[in-house]
C-alpha cells in the first residue's frame, strides 16, 4: 500500500482509539479537549527547551570568541617580543577554538530552525484547539445524537491528526535538544575542570600567558636592574667621600661597602 495512505491510516487508527474510549461521544469531546490542552502545554515546553538550549550555545559561542580574541592578542604580544614559537602556539590554539566555534554555529542554526518550526506548530495547534472548543459547544447544543456523532468523529479525527503531527515534532525537537544539551554540558564541564584551558584559554592558568608575563616580567627586571645600577654609579662618589670622612659611617654601612663597591664597579 502507498506510503501516503499507510501513514494516514496509522493516524486514523490513533484517532479512532480516542473516539472509542467513551460510550457517550460527547465525553470523547471533553476528553479530547483535555488532551489538546495538555498537548499545547507540552508544545510550549518544547519551544522553551529549544530556546534555553539555543541561549546556552550562544553563551558558549561568546566565551569561545573571547578566548579567540585573547589568543590573537597573545600571538601579537609574542611576535612583538620576538617569540615566534609562542605566537605559533597561540595561533594553533586559536584554530582549535575556531573549529569548536564552527561546530557550535551549526548547532545554533539547527536549534534556531527547530525553534521557528515549533513556534509555528504551536500557533497552528492553538488555532485548532480554539476552533475545536467552539465546535465542541455547538455540537453539544445543536445536533441530534446521530449528527453529533459524525461531527464529533470529524472534529476529533482532525484535531488528533494535528496533535499527532505536532507531537512528533515536539518529540524530535526534544530528542535533539537533549543531545545538544549533553554536548554543551560536556564542554562546560571541560572548561570548569580546566582540561580545556589549552584550547579555550579561559581558565586562570594559561601557560602562554604565563610565559608572556614572565617575559614581560623579565623585561621589567632588566629595566629595574639598569635603574639600580644607574643609581649606584651615581651614588659611588658621595659614598667614597662619606667613607673617607670616617666617623659618620655606621658599622653596618661599613660592612656593606666592600660588597657594594665591586658590584658598582662591574656595572659601570
Amino acid at each position, binding site marked *: 500500500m*502507498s*506510503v*501516503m*495512505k*499507510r*501513514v*494516514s491510516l*496509522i*493516524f*486514523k*487508527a*490513533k*484517532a479512532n482509539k480516542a473516539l472509542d474510549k467513551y460510550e457517550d461521544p460527547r465525553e470523547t469531546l471533553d476528553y479530547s479537549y483535555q*488532551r489538546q490542552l495538555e*498537548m499545547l502545554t507540552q508544545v510550549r515546553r518544547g519551544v522553551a527547551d529549544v530556546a534555553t538550549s539555543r541561549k546556552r550555545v550562544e553563551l558558549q559561542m561568546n566565551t569561545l570568541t573571547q578566548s579567540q580574541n585573547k589568543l590573537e592578542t597573545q600571538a601579537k604580544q609574542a611576535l612583538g617580543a620576538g617569540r615566534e614559537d609562542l605566537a605559533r602556539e597561540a595561533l594553533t590554539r586559536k584554530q582549535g577554538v575556531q573549529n569548536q566555534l564552527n561546530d557550535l554555529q551549526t548547532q545554533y542554526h539547527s536549534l534556531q530552525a527547530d525553534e521557528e*518550526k515549533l513556534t509555528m*506548530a504551536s*500557533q*497552528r495547534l492553538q*488555532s*485548532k484547539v*480554539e*476552533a*475545536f472548543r467552539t*465546535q465542541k459547544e455547538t455540537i453539544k447544543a445543536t445536533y441530534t445524537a446521530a449528527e453529533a456523532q459524525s461531527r464529533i468523529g*470529524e*472534529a476529533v*479525527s*482532525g*484535531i*488528533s*491528526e494535528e*496533535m*499527532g*503531527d*505536532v*507531537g*512528533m*515534532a*515536539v*518529540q524530535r525537537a526534544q530528542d535533539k535538544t537533549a543531545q545538544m544539551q549533553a554536548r554543551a554540558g560536556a564542554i562546560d564541564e571541560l572548561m570548569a575542570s580546566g582540561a580545556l584551558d589549552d584550547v579555550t584559554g579561559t581558565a586562570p592558568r594559561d601557560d602562554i600567558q604565563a610565559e608572556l608575563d614572565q617575559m614581560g616580567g623579565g623585561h621589567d627586571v632588566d629595566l629595574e636592574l639598569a635603574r639600580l645600577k644607574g643609581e649606584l654609579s651615581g651614588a659611588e662618589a658621595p659614598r667614597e667621600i662619606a667613607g673617607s670622612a670616617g666617623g659618620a659611617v655606621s658599622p653596618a654601612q661599613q660592612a656593606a661597602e666592600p660588597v657594594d663597591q665591586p658590584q658598582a664597579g662591574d656595572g659601570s
Partner: protein
Amino acid sequence: MIVRILGEGQLEVDDAASDELNALDARLEAAVNADDEQAFRSALDALLGRIRSLGAPLPVDALEPSALILPDAEATMDSVRELLNGEGLIPG
C-alpha cells in the same frame, strides 16, 4: 482532497491530481522497499514539491482529517520506516 505534510500543515489538492500523486507515491514506496536512500530522497522531494505547487493551504482553524499524510521534507528513510511500522511514534 486534503493532504497533510507532516510538520507543515494541511493543503487542499484537486482530486484530479490523484493519479499523478499516486505515481510519485509509488516511486517513494519502491525506494523505501529497495532501501535506496538516494531514490527515496528524490522521490520525496518530487512528491512534496508537486503537492506544494498544486495545493492551497487549509485555513489554520480548519478541523478536518486528511485523506493522505506525507512525511516531512527532512524525514530520513529510517524515520519513514518507523512511521510506517510504529504505533508508538505518534503521540496524542
